[in-house]
């Protein structure tokens, strides 16, 4: 009964602050859309080079098909193998297609031939898109051949991603935005809303009342927990229906893991609120202390593998990193719980640790 009274009041605070609410819901939508369309999958007139060692009918046909598509602008100049590397480094070309000299012969005698596709994967999104275009054109060509000859032909493109073989960076932003938004809502908003009560002097009144101090904090956190879950839903809906990024794994698992991360963030928020006395300080600490490490160390913007060892070690204590790995694993790789139990365990451990520390400092403050 008392708890419900309290919750009602907390929801009134949150829902009445229209400006903040607008930011809280507008931000993830804007971020998803901006990131989504800035990282568009559509690539047109990309400069590629074709090195045709075969120069036979079959290879000519394939090149003509490539030319016919809107996607490529084929450099006619014949380059040596050493010049390919140079052109890539200069950024002149995005992709190179190498047709071996025995292409037509292999196709005619073994019904099976190979081509090599080399892409500049320093821009992983473009590289991925371009190689996909090549593959589909090749598949198209191979079906055409099979249809006219009545036998099945196979052309296997062997793909090489230069500079970034694992294509890190693709679709990274959705899990990244999720981590960022949850961090912002939970840590900053919770900290600020609790500190506001301290600043206003209402916290004293609440502490003198028979309402348990712990309950005060919990009921402050609940509206933000709900708000964050709604944000997760919005982000997922946008990524599926607007950005065509499918969710390969279980949505339920995704929400369970998100709730875990939200609780981690709320705990951090409560900890900050216990330690600070003014809203500005709480906001500053939340931004500098939590947002910055999240952006730097979650792997969302900068690949952790490329960092110096010391920074790699530091990145391990950032909760967002583990959440980011979990979300990517579920959404993009489609892994189940068995694939992410280790990360989940680490995140849970952090949450429990933070919870104990916050509750302790909270109690000390009261005494």
């Amino acid at each position, binding site marked *: 009964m008392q708890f419900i*009274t*309290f919750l009602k009041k907390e929801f009134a605070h949150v829902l009445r*602050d229209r400006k903040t609410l607008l930011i809280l819901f507008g931000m993830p939508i804007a971020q998803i859309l901006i990131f989504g369309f800035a990282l568009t999958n559509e690539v047109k007139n990309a400069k590629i080079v074709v090195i045709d060692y075969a120069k036979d009918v079959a290879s000519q046909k394939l090149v003509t098909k490539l030319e016919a598509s809107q996607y490529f602008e084929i450099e006619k100049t014949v380059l040596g193998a050493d010049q390919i590397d140079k052109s890539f480094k200069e950024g002149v070309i995005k992709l190179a297609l190498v047709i071996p000299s025995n292409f037509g012969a292999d196709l005619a005698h073994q019904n099976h031939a190979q081509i090599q596709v080399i892409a500049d994967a320093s821009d992983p999104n473009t590289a991925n898109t371009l190689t996909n275009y090549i593959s589909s054109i090749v598949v198209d060509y191979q079906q055409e051949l099979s249809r006219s000859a009545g036998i099945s032909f196979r052309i296997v493109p062997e793909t090489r991603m230069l500079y970034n073989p694992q294509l890190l960076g693709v679709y990274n932003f959705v899990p990244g935005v999720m981590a960022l938004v949850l961090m912002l809502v939970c840590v900053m908003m919770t900290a600020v809303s609790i500190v506001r009560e301290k600043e206003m*002097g209402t916290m*004293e*009144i609440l502490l*003198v*009342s028979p*309402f348990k101090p712990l309950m005060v904090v919990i009921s402050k956190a609940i509206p933000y927990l709900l708000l964050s879950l709604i944000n997760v839903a919005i982000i997922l809906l946008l990524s599926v229906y607007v950005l065509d990024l499918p969710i390969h794994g279980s949505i339920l698992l995704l929400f369970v893991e998100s709730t875990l991360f939200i609780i981690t963030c709320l705990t951090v928020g409560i900890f900050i609120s216990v330690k600070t006395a003014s809203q500005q300080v709480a906001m500053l600490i939340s931004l500098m202390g939590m947002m910055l490490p999240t952006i730097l160390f979650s792997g969302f913007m900068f690949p952790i593998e490329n960092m110096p060892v010391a920074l790699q070690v530091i990145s391990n204590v950032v909760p967002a990193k583990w959440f980011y790995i979990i979300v990517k694993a579920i959404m993009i790789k489609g892994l189940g719980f068995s694939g992410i139990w280790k990360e989940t365990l680490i995140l849970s451990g952090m949450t429990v640790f933070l919870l104990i520390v916050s509750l302790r400092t909270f109690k000390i403050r*009261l005494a």
Partner: protein
Amino acid sequence: MDTVIKTDKLTKRFGAFIAANEITLEVYKGEIFGFLGANGAGKTTAMRMLCGLSTPSSGNAIIAGFDVYKQTEKIKKNIGYMSQKFSLYDDLTVLENIYFFGGIYGLSDDQLKNKSSELIKRLGLENEATKLVSSLPLGWKQKLSFSVAVLHEPKIVFLDEPTGGVDPVTRRQFWDLIYEAADRGVTIFVTTHYMDEAEYCNRISIMVDGKVEALDSPSNLKSNFGVRSMDEVFYQLARGAKRGD
């Protein structure tokens, strides 16, 4: 007379610093008790102990019949509190504030309904009931704040400099509310820096450097010190203080 606050050598130490030193006093039911002292004299520390917010280092105290060491939860149910900072929620309406504060003291829906309509009528806030508290003038806010603090009919209400920053007319009106509450049998424990307000109290104590140096009715204090105003009594005592802000 019923004693509602009884302390015996109540002391609070922070390391070597003795914030409140062997405070012994009794406050009776329905009394308006002024708790005076210069800044840093230890008023707030003493009051926090009486409210069950802070555990004493030594000494004893019984508040509203309950022990400050073991029964803080029961104490909290039986006291009201209003601080110098304005203590309602600006972004809630008058009614919502009443419901909220009544609610956390465990009043039922029926009680809340009756009490809130009665309170709004008494304060003449019929037209403002569903408006946000931020739109009220400070004087009204303060009156509402006090009324909310006594809504659950506590035995004692603690007022920590309740009239800071309020004009004399509004202050006078505020004290009318305090007298009404005292007439209903609520004990008022009030801290203030205004000596005219000290005169309104039945009895006052004056704290200097953590100790209660004087405790009597305003008229007795004045005659004991051989002065004509409370200002002079306070000045004579506080002049010797070594602690300050």
